[in-house]
């Protein structure tokens, strides 16, 4: 949950990158760490001890400076995507203010995307939150693989399967090159700050 100090005009909020294993959540954070140097306020902590698979979470702190008279700080987290780390996902999701769901565009990962979105939905319910109310952005990652001979799903199909009911903002991306990463982050931040404004009326 965001920490809002109206006296000192400070906001600290938490965004979580969610999605199936190997969909590119850590790669998103790595790109942000590299490309948004001015905003990065501390080192990226990446706890991956099983090859390059996230076992716990990645963490990256950002400082966005003054927005509407408030000093805005953001903590970015990723969750481990593997099914067996459900408990860790719940733990990392605790106190979340906004979510980026990183879906894998590869056709073979269709089912995994859907299962992971369902898992997010269930975990949010456990925390008393609703997937329809929390600030959420979908990212269709790995679009660059289209040119490499791998079958990928069309954006239309992904929209239909993942976003037909949610109707949240979505972006195509290639986290490796960074394409779409900034847009995804900006939109998620915008939605999150709007949601916090509706709740806490922090903006001057």
């Amino acid at each position, binding site marked *: 949950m965001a920490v809002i100090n109206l006296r000192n005009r400070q906001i600290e909020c938490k965004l979580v990158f969610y999605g199936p294993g190997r969909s590119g959540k850590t790669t998103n954070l790595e790109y942000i760490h590299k490309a948004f140097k001015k905003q990065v306020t501390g080192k990226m*902590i990446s706890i991956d001890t099983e090859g*390059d698979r996230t076992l716990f979470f990645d963490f990256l702190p950002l400082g966005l400076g003054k927005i509407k008279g408030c000093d805005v700080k953001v903590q970015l987290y990723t969750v481990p995507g593997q099914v067996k780390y459900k408990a860790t996902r719940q733990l990392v999701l605790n106190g979340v203010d906004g979510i980026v769901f990183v879906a894998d565009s590869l056709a073979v990962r269709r089912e995994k995307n859907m299962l992971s979105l369902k898992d997010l939905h269930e975990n949010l319910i456990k925390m008393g939150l609703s997937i329809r109310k929390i600030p959420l952005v979908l990212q269709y990652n790995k679009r660059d693989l289209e040119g490499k001979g791998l079958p990928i799903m069309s954006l239309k199909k992904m929209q239909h399967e993942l976003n037909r009911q949610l109707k949240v903002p979505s972006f195509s991306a290639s986290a490796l090159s960074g394409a779409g990463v900034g847009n995804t982050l900006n939109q998620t931040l915008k939605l999150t700050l709007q949601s916090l404004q509706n709740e806490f009326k922090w903006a001057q």
Partner: protein
Amino acid sequence: MDLGEKIKKYYKEAELYNSHGLLTDALEKYKSIEGLVKSTRNIQNRQGILKQIALKIESTNKKLQKIEGPKTTTEVAEDAQSLMQEMFSFDDPESKGSSVLGGAIALVKFGQYDKAIEELNRLLEYDKFRLDAAKKILWCWVQQNYMEYAVSLYQKWRKNKLFPPEEADAIQKYFNELIDNAGGDQEIDELESQRTVEPDSEIDDDEILDISAARFVLPRGPKEGEKIELEISFQSGKYIRMIISRREKNLIDSINPGDLLKEIVFSSPAAIFSGEGYVSSKNEIDAGPKKGDYSLEIKIIKIIS
């Protein structure tokens, strides 16, 4: 698409999935190739292709088994542990000291048991946190399958009257349930309160080599965290005894009966090996040339390597 092209296409896909860490998908593609080749007789270098694909299937399966095996708990770096404590302590920031307990509980939740126990042990000194800290400590040991040690620790607390009566009842009830849920058969109510039960040892006395020295990290007190090496003065099977000079007051205060030493390096004339041990006694020698020194006895409960 002719068969050759199809195989090439599948192989390329499989390799790309493999390089992206999508091992299940890669495995499926390799198996599709194997199926195609097996069902076609007149294919050039058929045996060679089958052999190569079999190797790919084997190595991918190995990687998969490693990843899909049971969830393991891993001790992470100190900065990551600090982050877990700081960021996942969801308690009331206004309540003094509660964040320490919250941080320790966060470590427990992430499976950072050693660090969590270290933090929780400190909280045993505070009335406000003692009960919660003790429950979490017992839970950590049981989670790591150190049931016997958890029992001995509980008994030590009881013997030392760590808890006031109402808390003693609460912890006993909690611990009984914990043991039941873990499928243990220990009856803590029936155990003699003056006797500390030692954890079982996995080792037969005959298996143990003659040990000349033991090196381990001190678990508590003024020298906590320091590594020391002591010469073995006497050995009887899995029990080893060492002498600590009376002049080493800080060292004497840094180890006590009931401590579990999780990483001991044993030196013997034939080999060096490591294991776990339980401090079974520490007594002041009351006669002879070593009068005033301390005799420390460790029971070796497990050999690791």
